[in-house]
């Protein structure tokens, strides 16, 4: 009997450790950000000067870099991931080809981001440089545009998988009712499937955004690592994640390191909120559709 009680106690303890882990992470980041919060206050968010030598740390260029690359990548990849999920969810629901495609997408999304970055560096950067020369702008090759491209390629498999799962949940009888009225496949998708799956698709986009915001390696390798406020879409820039990756080990001085930790805290809070909302919507629609 004693053993059984110990066993149950251990299980509950593990549950508690796992629940508190997140809180501990949050408090650690907050604690680590304290020197920066105290020294910089709100200025951290709207100042555009990042100069470790003069102890000035403004996160604005990196906030903008992160937001622009992530939202643009999401916008570019959305038609593609939606097409893939419609194809797999409606046109090719079962069968060998469908399974093969699904497995391929899963496998591709497992490829480490450093490898995408390497590929981007070798293939995309020269490509973008050529485009820039034709457009008569400074041909860096690296920059926001290149980072956006590689991010959109990386986001496609992830969002396509979520959106496909939502689309597959649309009840068959609903679709069959529309078909029996003589609707074409296009009409069924446009008037039944997509409206029905709308909130799930939105959640899929949200979760993909969370992914894109925190993506580090591939972006770091092609964004050009420039700490000034980017003037154009093609300018070299930095995201919050890439700045942390580049400067964390060389950050000497309390406020310097702390301001990088504060950026981590910001990423933590934003992705946590995005995940809570996204998963909440997905859970709700899943339950609704199963009923």
């Amino acid at each position, binding site marked *: 009997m004693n053993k059984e009680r110990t066993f149950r106690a251990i299980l509950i303890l593990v549950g508690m450790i796992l629940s508190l882990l997140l809180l501990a992470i949050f408090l650690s980041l907050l604690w680590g950000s304290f020197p920066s919060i105290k020294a910089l206050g709100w200025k951290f968010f709207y100042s555009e000067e990042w100069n470790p030598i003069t102890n000035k740390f403004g996160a604005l260029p990196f906030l903008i870099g992160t937001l622009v690359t992530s939202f643009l990548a999401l916008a570019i990849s959305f038609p*593609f991931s939606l097409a893939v999920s419609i194809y797999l969810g409606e046109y090719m629901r079962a069968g060998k080809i469908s399974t093969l495609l699904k497995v391929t997408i899963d496998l591709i999304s497992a490829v480490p981001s*450093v490898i995408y970055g390497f590929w981007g560096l070798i293939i995309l950067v020269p490509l973008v440089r050529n485009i820039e020369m034709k457009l008569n702008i400074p041909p860096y090759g690296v920059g926001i545009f290149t980072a956006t491209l590689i991010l959109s390629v990386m986001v496609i498999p992830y969002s396509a998988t979520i959106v496909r799962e939502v689309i597959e949940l649309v009840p068959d009888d609903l679709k069959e009712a529309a078909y029996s009225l003589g609707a074409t*496949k296009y009409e069924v998708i446009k008037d039944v499937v997509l409206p029905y799956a709308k909130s799930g698709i939105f959640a899929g986009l949200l979760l993909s955004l969370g992914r894109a915001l925190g993506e580090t390696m591939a972006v770091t390798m092609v964004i050009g690592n420039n700490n000034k406020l980017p003037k154009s879409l093609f300018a070299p820039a930095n995201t919050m*994640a890439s700045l*942390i990756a580049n400067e964390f080990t060389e950050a000497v001085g309390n406020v310097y390191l702390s301001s990088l930790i504060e950026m981590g805290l910001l990423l933590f809070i934003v992705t946590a909120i995005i995940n809570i909302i996204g998963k909440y919507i997905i859970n709700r629609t899943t339950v609704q559709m199963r009923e």
Partner: protein
Amino acid sequence: MSDKKTALRLAKNKVFKFIVVLFSLGSIIPLLFILLYIFKKGIGVINWKFLVGLPKPPGVTGGGIANAIVGTLMLILVASLFAIPLGVSGGVFLSEYRKSKLAYFTRLSVEILQGIPSIVIGIIAYLWVVKPMGKFSAFSGGIALGMIMLPMVVRSSEEVLKLVPRTLKEASLALGIPYHRTILRVAVPSALPGIVSGVLLGIARIAGETAPLLFTAFGNQFMNWNLFKPVNSLPLLIFNYAMSPYDEWQRAAWGASVILVIIVLLGNIISRMIVNKWKTRF
């Protein structure tokens, strides 16, 4: 009139399908192209000397990546020792106390943990391990990777444990076998293939993680077997060599990329095969 309308609707239908197929191909082909390109560039680099040799300075040919392979294995080992026991027992907890309030918070915490950018996990490992110990080490890198693996193991174990038929556990309890033995000897073993496949998926994921290692495992040009010293890993080596201007190093990075991709894909494929085989049993 109505014939015209129908023709238009049918035409729209066709155009739509065409667009869907076009965009689908447009997203899958570049991805496949990336994979093929990596293999094309890297497969020729790999030979026995590349696998067992040590890095050479730029300009000298014939360097290997043995230190990165050893480092990656060390990191995976530490991460597994940390994440598997905690993760599986977390999965047992969630599947046994499904409806409890604590389980709700645990599940929420684990779900959020899974979505946190890996670079942020790296900062945490720095604050919790590197700073107190005063140095970069394989150990701290392993802890960082373990924290990334942990939520994956918890969630997959929970899911497979939920699939174990209740009758199986009831049969065991009816025979008078105590609760903890029922869990450890009946529930967990029958869910073991599913748990193993989740673990494999987790290992495949962390094998390619780079960002959290930048300021934990740090990287090392030399062979290192010491858990408490900086260590190299395959993704770190790819990152450092890819950003270097030396042809020889870039070639080595392609070779390392192929090995890493093979590890990751194998982990995924084997895990999938185990799950498919196991699911048909229940």
